[in-house]
């Protein structure tokens, strides 16, 4: 173990926080939401790899690989949905409905 496990976990949590901030704050574009989700998954993968190295076991890496497979599938699904949205509306910007306008206030 070259680097302490704490650094890996802190870095992973920090990445998770950045991605979460991106989803909750800048959710006006499909691609940006997708990139934020992938940043979150990168943080999780980093935690897996650090823990696997710390415990001197390949199990962390194996679970990281499976998570990677599922995350790639999720990203492809997201791209498919955004492609369908783009063909429907001609833009990848997400239109968030204004609740006040819907209520007629």
């Amino acid at each position, binding site marked *: 173990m070259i680097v302490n496990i704490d650094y890996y976990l802190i870095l992973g949590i920090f990445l998770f926080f950045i991605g979460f901030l991106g989803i909750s704050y800048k959710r006006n574009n499909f691609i940006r939401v997708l990139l934020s989700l992938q940043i979150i998954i990168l943080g999780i993968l980093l935690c897996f790899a650090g823990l696997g190295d710390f415990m001197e076991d390949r199990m*962390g890496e*194996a679970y990281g690989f499976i998570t990677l497979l599922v995350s790639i599938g999720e990203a*492809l699904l997201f791209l498919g949905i955004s492609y369908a949205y783009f063909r429907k509306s001609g833009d990848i910007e997400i239109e968030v409905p204004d609740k006040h306008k819907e209520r007629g206030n």
Partner: protein
Amino acid sequence: MVIFFLFSFFLILFAMISVFRKDTLEASIAFLCSVFCVSALFILSRAEFLAIATLISYTGLTIIIFLFTFLSMDTKERSFKRRFFPLGIITSIVFLVELGIIFLSLFSSSDCFFCNSSVTLSSRDYPMKTDNNVWELSYLLFHDLWFLVIVSSIILFLITLCIMSISTIKDEEREDK
């Protein structure tokens, strides 16, 4: 330790750029750079297989995102992006030169991997205890965790089917109209 902090700094920097940058193309390039930094950190934590898998799969994903964003742009914005063309050419030349150096060093060394015909898969005992962890991890994935691998592969297959069916349904709807 210094390398870890260097790559961590760049990782956080590129992650913040990819999340908060307004231009989607630049955000996707920054995301690719952050994936590169994460792969370097994986190698530091002795997870070489995961590093290579991450790099290959996310590079493909980023290229798809890049193309999708580029095709959804207006013509004026596309011509504006041509100012990055010289930078792209220089980067491509640097990568090609690096690739050439790697191949030359592989074929010129005495223990050339591609030239050594005595290395066969059948002569190896599993699990291999070598310096690189690929054999060990493959044994773990396809022997101990085979069920999870198959489930994740089926999920990938179903997702691909979903995407294809979404596109087909949309095409049929358009033709009906």
